[in-house]
């Protein structure tokens, strides 16, 4: 066995570093995913898919990866991640429009610093709370920030700030001034690199002793405290780290949109969307939130062009995920894979599936009808 291949549980695994191993099928999927990521600009040129929407989806997905650190490991539901996303975006926008910083990388550094500071500050207050209180407290801080930005002249109220340092051209990337389409392309590849590096860092992190401690905190705080884990401090650190991810995503979002306004970056429902991306993609997985982000953002942005009732479409997708794919899109792939294999060998199972779906739908409808009858007529 070479340095990169190890034998474990009777399977050959690709080993990237200590604790970071992939099975054969996972590595094939990972390589495939990377190729697809880098090929997106070409794919969108050849098909009618929207490049912008996918790019935005990846950015929101990156924020959702940060949120997933809390959701998956410490089992805390954060309803305020738009705060970091928005602060990141505004960090870049303020540097560009008030201080005329023209280097895109410096703007990103600014947004990460700003969002980290905010995350550290909010984390200090919320680290001791649990469950719904944690969710609502993060939501409250998020809304306070939103209200503050919306009412502040420095941030230009609801119109927001432009991310064009000289008022005309986009920021420079790697010291060069790009044309509009070149800028988008370079920014996209840069995003992909940032995404891959962030995912690897997150992977390393959750496999570190710190990540294990977070798992312990999520399972039982009291026990975690008994074995000597400083619970509040670790939750605080995890919160700050997820804020870094949010800020990075927000800063890239500012560079992509070249204009930052409060509604699409800071509003409480953006927080909700980031949370739902993580669940939609599969919050038990590392990469799931990114996929959830791309799918949800694509639905939200592109569906209006194709169907009139796009909200209902998104809503039905979410309801279907809750009822039929509880592990999310990526989390369900293994299950779907084995299910498909079994059905190929035994087509009779398909009829059973149809019957199951049919009967569960029928049961839902009949429950609803009975309830309505009871409410309207008083008897069943």
């Amino acid at each position: 066995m070479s340095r990169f291949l190890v034998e474990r549980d009777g399977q050959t695994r690709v080993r990237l570093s200590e604790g970071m191993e992939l099975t054969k099928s996972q590595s094939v999927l990972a390589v495939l995913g990377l190729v697809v990521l880098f090929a997106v600009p070409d794919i969108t040129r050849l098909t009618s898919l929207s490049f912008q929407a996918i790019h935005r989806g990846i950015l929101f997905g990156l924020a959702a990866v940060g949120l997933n650190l809390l959701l998956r490991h410490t089992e805390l539901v954060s309803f305020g991640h738009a705060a970091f996303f928005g602060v990141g975006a505004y960090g870049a926008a303020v540097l560009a429009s008030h201080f005329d910083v023209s280097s895109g990388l410096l703007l990103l550094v600014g947004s990460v610093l700003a969002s980290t500071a905010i995350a550290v500050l909010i984390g200090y207050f919320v680290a001791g709370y649990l469950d719904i209180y944690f969710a609502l407290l993060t939501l409250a801080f998020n809304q306070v920030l939103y209200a503050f930005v919306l009412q502040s002249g420095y941030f230009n109220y609801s119109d927001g700030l432009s991310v064009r340092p000289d008022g005309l051209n986009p920021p420079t990337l790697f010291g060069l001034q790009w044309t509009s389409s070149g800028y988008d392309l370079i920014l996209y590849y840069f995003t992909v690199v940032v995404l891959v590096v962030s995912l690897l860092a997150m992977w390393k992190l959750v496999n570190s002793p710190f990540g294990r401690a977070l798992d312990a905190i999520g399972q039982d705080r009291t026990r975690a405290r008994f074995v000597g884990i400083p619970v509040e401090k670790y939750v605080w650190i995890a919160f700050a780290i997820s804020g870094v991810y949010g800020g990075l995503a927000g800063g890239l979002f500012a560079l992509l949109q070249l204009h930052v306004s409060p509604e699409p970056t800071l509003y409480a429902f953006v927080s909700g969307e980031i949370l739902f991306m993580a669940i939609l993609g599969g919050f038990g997985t590392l990469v799931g939130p990114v996929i959830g982000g791309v799918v949800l953002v694509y639905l939200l942005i592109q569906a209006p062009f194709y169907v009139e009732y796009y909200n209902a479409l998104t809503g039905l997708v979410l309801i279907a995920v809750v009822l039929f794919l509880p592990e999310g899109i990526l989390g369900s792939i293994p299950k779907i894979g084995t299910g498909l294999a079994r059905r190929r060998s035994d087509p009779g199972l398909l009829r059973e599936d149809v019957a199951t779906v049919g009967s569960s739908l029928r049961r839902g409808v009949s429950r609803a009808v009975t309830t309505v009858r009871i409410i309207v007529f008083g008897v069943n």
Partner: protein
Amino acid sequence: MLEHVLNGLYYGSILFMIASGMTIIFGVLGILNLAHGELYALGAFCAFSIVGFVAGQVAAPTGPATTIVFGLVVLAGSLAAAAVLLPVGGALEAAFIRPIYDRDEVYQLLLTYGLLLVLTDVMKFVWGPSPVDVGVFSAINEIPTTELVGFSYPSYNVLVILIGVAVFAWLAWFFDRTKTGRIVRATAINREMSTAIGVSTDRMFTLVFAIGAFFAGFGGAMVSIGPSSASLGMGLSWLVLSFVVIVIGGLGSLKGAFVGALLVGVSSRVVTPYYPQLELAVPFLLMVLVLLVRPEGLYGTWGEIQ
């Protein structure tokens, strides 16, 4: 100043009608219903159709007596509009929410958010994308109230404040004094035990959800009859504010929701004229303050949350 306080009370009354439903649904079912704002909007749209219809059946008011008749007709119409929400709420609970009581709370949030989106489009399908207005507001203001004490303030707002108090009184009576209400509270405190003594928890949950939907719809009807109109996005900001109210009052506490709603309403309306930049932030600052000082809210809970 008095006018701002009254504005705040009006605002708080509407807020209470929405938040009361959310808080009892959370207290009993253990579900934070994100679709509640849309139920409120649905009530507003139903009021447009139903109140518009019944108000057309009676003559426009000419003197004080006919004004009061007109007001009563409008009130009956908005009750009827809210009553539409009873079967709607019950059906939603039975079909969608009942299968996920045992699931993680993130799934419950995701499902109710999905319902929110679907409901928005149902309303868009039925009433169209542009806002609609009932337009009986000025006629109701003919009813004399504040003029009797030598002070000018829209009578409609005064009526809504009174209705808000009445709703609170009815809910308190229902949960404290009636048998059904006590059964609901027992179910909230211990689901298994109440099943064991023969209570159908499914029925109770459906009932609670329907009641919550009814009052949200009633609040919506009150708003769309009032100076503002029924529009598609109207539920969102109220939804977020209702979170604030029920957190300030204590999750699951009815009294807390009442006090919290009035507190949020009055503080935001009184502060706004002097510090307009604080308008949006005040409720949330209140919430942060309450959560940091008294995490369980002002009144704690009357039903244990599972």
